[in-house]
């Protein structure tokens, strides 16, 4: 029995808890992508840079707060700085809509044109980020490091294996839950939220019903940018802020949004966790896990790892391709894509 418990705790510590945190970050990112797709009907390739940009502004705000001695320990100061990052990023994203996308919306351009325009926006944002904060890593997590550490856990349970919960992981999970609940209340209960869903469902009929398309589009950008900043900051707090890493996150985020069904908020969340757990569980080395469960002479020779960590993108990609081949509309999309 102890062996079983130890195995579960081990898996939780190295795969399930980090996977849940990563999944939350992906889900928030995918929500931003899916909202823009639902309302503006294009895949926003600048979303990764939006996350990075928001995290960067939040880092500057964090540094400012830290220099003034403001702290909300044990929570990271970054949380306090988050609203500033959101406000600035929302302003930038709304400007990008006004100066770039609005024109093509007016012209009713093909979605590919929007996609190419988003590449232009991506370049501008990537350049600004590299120019302002530089290409180096930044660590801005402060406050308590652990909610409980491996040693605490062992002392309490008396198990051989330990389980740690980092403050950033708990913050990620709680923030993600708060965001998702707030978003669904907004979309499901408020007049504005419903008008947004109506516009996503049937643009012409929404306009006919007196729903202001410009307002819906603005709100979609505001929500998308807010979620992007939160996702970016949580990822940065949890790992560390690398300006370039968000470009790489684009693939798992898109995969999450497509697996769930582009345009479906529920799908984006489920997709985020599917991708995250698949990545973590496929690249986890099960050697020690099996050690608790099977007799020594049954043990496999190697690490018992299905795939090297360096190929975690391949996991996201394979899931993406399988989705596109088997069910291109995704899990939660009733409409034909």
């Amino acid at each position: 029995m102890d062996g079983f418990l130890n195995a579960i705790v081990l898996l939780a510590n190295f795969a399930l808890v980090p996977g849940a945190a990563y999944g939350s970050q992906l889900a928030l990112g995918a929500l931003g992508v899916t909202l823009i797709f639902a309302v503006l009907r294009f895949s926003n390739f600048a979303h990764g840079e939006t996350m990075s940009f928001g995290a960067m502004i939040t880092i500057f705000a964090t540094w400012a707060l830290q220099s003034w001695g403001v702290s909300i320990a044990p929570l990271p100061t970054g949380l306090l700085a988050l609203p500033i990052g959101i406000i600035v990023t929302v302003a930038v994203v709304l400007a990008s809509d006004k100066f770039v996308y609005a024109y093509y919306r007016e012209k009713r351009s093909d979605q590919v044109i929007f996609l190419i325009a988003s590449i232009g926006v991506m370049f501008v944002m990537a350049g600004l980020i590299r120019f302002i904060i530089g290409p180096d890593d930044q660590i801005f997590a402060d406050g308590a490091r652990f909610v409980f550490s491996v040693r605490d856990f062992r002392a309490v349970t008396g198990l051989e294996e330990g389980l740690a919960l980092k403050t950033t992981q708990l913050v990620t999970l709680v923030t993600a839950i708060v965001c998702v609940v707030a978003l669904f209340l907004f979309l499901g209960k408020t007049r504005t939220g419903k008008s947004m869903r109506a516009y996503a469902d049937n643009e012409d009929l929404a306009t006919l019903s007196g729903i202001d398309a410009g307002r819906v589009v603005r709100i979609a950008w505001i929500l998308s940018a807010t979620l992007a900043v939160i996702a970016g900051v949580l990822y940065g707090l949890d790992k560390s802020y690398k300006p370039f890493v968000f470009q790489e996150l684009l693939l798992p985020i898109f995969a999450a949004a497509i697996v769930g069904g582009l345009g479906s908020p529920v799908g984006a969340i489920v997709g985020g966790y599917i991708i995250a757990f698949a990545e973590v569980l496929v690249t986890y080395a099960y050697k020690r896990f099996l050690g608790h469960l099977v007799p020594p002479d049954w043990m496999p020779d190697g690490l018992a790892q299905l795939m090297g960590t360096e190929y975690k993108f391949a996991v996201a990609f394979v899931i993406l391709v399988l989705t596109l081949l088997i069910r291109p509309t995704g899990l939660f999309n009733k409409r034909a894509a």
Partner: protein
Amino acid sequence: MSFLVARDMRGGYGAEDILQGCTVEADRGEIAVIVGPNGAGKSTAMKAIFGMLSLRGGAITLDGADLTRMKPTERVKNGMSFVPQVKNVFPSMSVEENLEMGAFIRRDDYSATMDEVYALFPVLAEKRRQPAGELSGGQRQQVAVGRALMTKPSLLMLDEPTAGVSPIVMDELFDRIIDVAKTGIAILMVEQNAKQALEIATRGYVLQHGKNAHTDTGEALLADPVVRRTFLGG
């Protein structure tokens, strides 16, 4: 003068006018039906009345007020309501939410109107929590009409409401439309199923080449041998 008067409408999408001086009228509590062969400009006439295409000539008045230069949303505020032929519901939203979106421009309490709609279409009350996209074709059309009624319009316009539904459902839909007219709303309808539509029509317009070919009560048009031979297939 009639409640709705759309007089001498001229216009179209490109350089060529589809409407070449056609006139349509409707009164409260009445059902006016536009029929005619394909390409006669039936739907175009209705879209022109709703302001979805700009006219080169003619005028549109509702209850004496001139609406000719207004945008569709302004016309909605002035009492018009329009049910498109296709894509006329919000498929992923529940029936109730569809009705709420119909009332989007209203800032007052619209729960009484919603009750009236549910009274007119009892099946919608039953399925109020179900996404509109999951309903049958006939029920979806009822949602579409119900959505359009949420603004408490004085003129309801329907673009081929029975397209693609079975004959039984069509009869049921026409019964509902008669019920709507009885509440004192003027109804203007474009129909492909000319015979059945003229049967319920107080006023019938037969359009041809963007012009009025025949105008009379529905009954009289059905009895007119010329109309029967040329447009109703004998």
